[in-house]
């Protein structure tokens, strides 16, 4: 589904992503794990055509992010790190807006909103202004908005950042419900989140991908009992 080859992003003297090579399979949930400044968000920005790579390329559904961004945009949905909802619109209006932007007819819009309201249990907040909702609800709405265009690939940038434990687990259920149906790439700081949701995990540091594998594989390779220790071992070994 996604083939990344030698992807590089440089900002003046800083190399945010340094020669990333990676393949992500259709229907897979892939987590990019890393400390601040590891290059996770920049990677997502390049894959979602928001930032032009300095070198290298990535194919999404066979389309190049550098040469065919318009085709790529038709295949992807993005839920940015910030919730990115329209604050003065109701949740329903926000969803209608995204339907209109994706060129859905009135009937399809109605059907799509009913479908997403059911899937994300949005009924209690449909008529409320999105900007007035709690962080957890805003994240749900944000993901629902990203799914309007029926993407084959969904990018979730730090989807549970700042959420309380209940809201986080609720959102995990939402992400699990999408598993296998579309390819999901999520970035996170949280080890338990990566382990609970992902088929495979990629560990990034200073723009480089240090290790890729299932949580079990990463633990096995490093000889550690939990993912957090495996992560620390991999990142520290690189420093040495």
């Amino acid at each position, binding site marked *: 589904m996604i083939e990344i080859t030698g992807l590089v992003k440089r900002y003046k003297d800083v190399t945010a992503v340094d020669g990333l090579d990676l393949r992500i399979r259709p229907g897979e949930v892939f987590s990019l794990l890393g400390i601040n400044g590891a290059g996770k968000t920049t990677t997502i*920005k390049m894959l*979602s*055509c*928001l*930032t*032009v790579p300095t070198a290298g390329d990535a194919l999404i559904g066979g389309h190049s992010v550098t040469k065919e961004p*318009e085709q790529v*945009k*038709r295949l*992807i*949905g*993005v*839920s*940015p*790190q*910030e*919730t*990115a*909802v*329209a*604050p*003065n*619109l109701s949740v329903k*209006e926000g969803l209608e*807006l*995204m339907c*209109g*932007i*994706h*060129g859905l007819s009135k009937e399809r819009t109605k059907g799509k909103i009913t479908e997403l309201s059911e899937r994300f249990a949005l009924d209690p907040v449909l008529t409320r202004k999105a900007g007035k909702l709690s962080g957890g609800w805003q994240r749900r709405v*944000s993901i629902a*908005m*990203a799914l309007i*265009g029926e993407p084959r690939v969904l990018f979730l940038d730090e989807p549970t950042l700042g959420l309380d434990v209940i809201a986080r687990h609720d959102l995990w259920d939402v992400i699990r419900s999408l598993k296998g149906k579309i390819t999901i790439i999520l970035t996170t700081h949280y080890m338990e989140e990566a382990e609970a949701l992902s088929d495979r995990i990629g560990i990034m540091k200073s723009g480089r991908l240090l290790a890729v594998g299932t949580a079990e594989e990463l633990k096995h390779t490093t000889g550690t009992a939990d993912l957090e220790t495996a992560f620390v071992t991999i990142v520290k070994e690189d420093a040495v």
Partner: protein
Amino acid sequence: MRMMTFAKRCAKEILRDPLSLVFGLGFPLVLLLLLSAIQASIPVDLFRIHSLTPGITIFGLSFMTLFSATLIAKDRESAFLQRLYTTPLSALDFILGYMLPILPIALGQTLICYLVAICLGLTVSIHMVYAIIGLIPMAVFHIALGLLCGSLLNVKQVGGICGALLTNLSAWLSGVWFDLELVGGVFQKIAGLLPFVHAVEMEKALLAGDLGAAAPHLLSVLAYSVVATLVAVSCFLGQMKKQ
């Protein structure tokens, strides 16, 4: 279709912000009423309703810059714009979507000012229609300025520059509150180089039915609108690319 959907959303965001309504519609009306009251007590030529109304309508347009810039800066800061950049919306959809919905708001604001001015004694005539139509280039200038500021500044900076600085510049350099000839010198020269006083003089001439007197001022305002639009579009496209 996509552009219209986006434009409707922008209009809703602006009109649902109570501060927009209070400042954008309320403030020019308060000034109109206040200065008319002053005129009733101490007659000043400048504040006669036939002179004052065109000036207030032009001053009111400075709030369109604030509306447009605030919306774009907020969309940038909240990453909403980033989300939309990953959708099939084109650059033209964004630019028109941000600019077009503010035009009817500007015209609505002007219409309300004229209705209040009629209640205060302004004679109803066909020239009002000329004045309202003639205001469009200046409205475009202010909206383009909003696109420019929204593309370059954050929400806080927009509040300071568009909310405080621009509204004051527009008021002081337009000759609405005082006769620029009384100040004279460099101040008058600077005012003459900027579009605000030309817009006010054009509106006064149009309201008086003197199309010949309006023409040179219209040219100046048109030139400013075209240049502001071109600069704003290129800055918006620049920040879009930078994303």
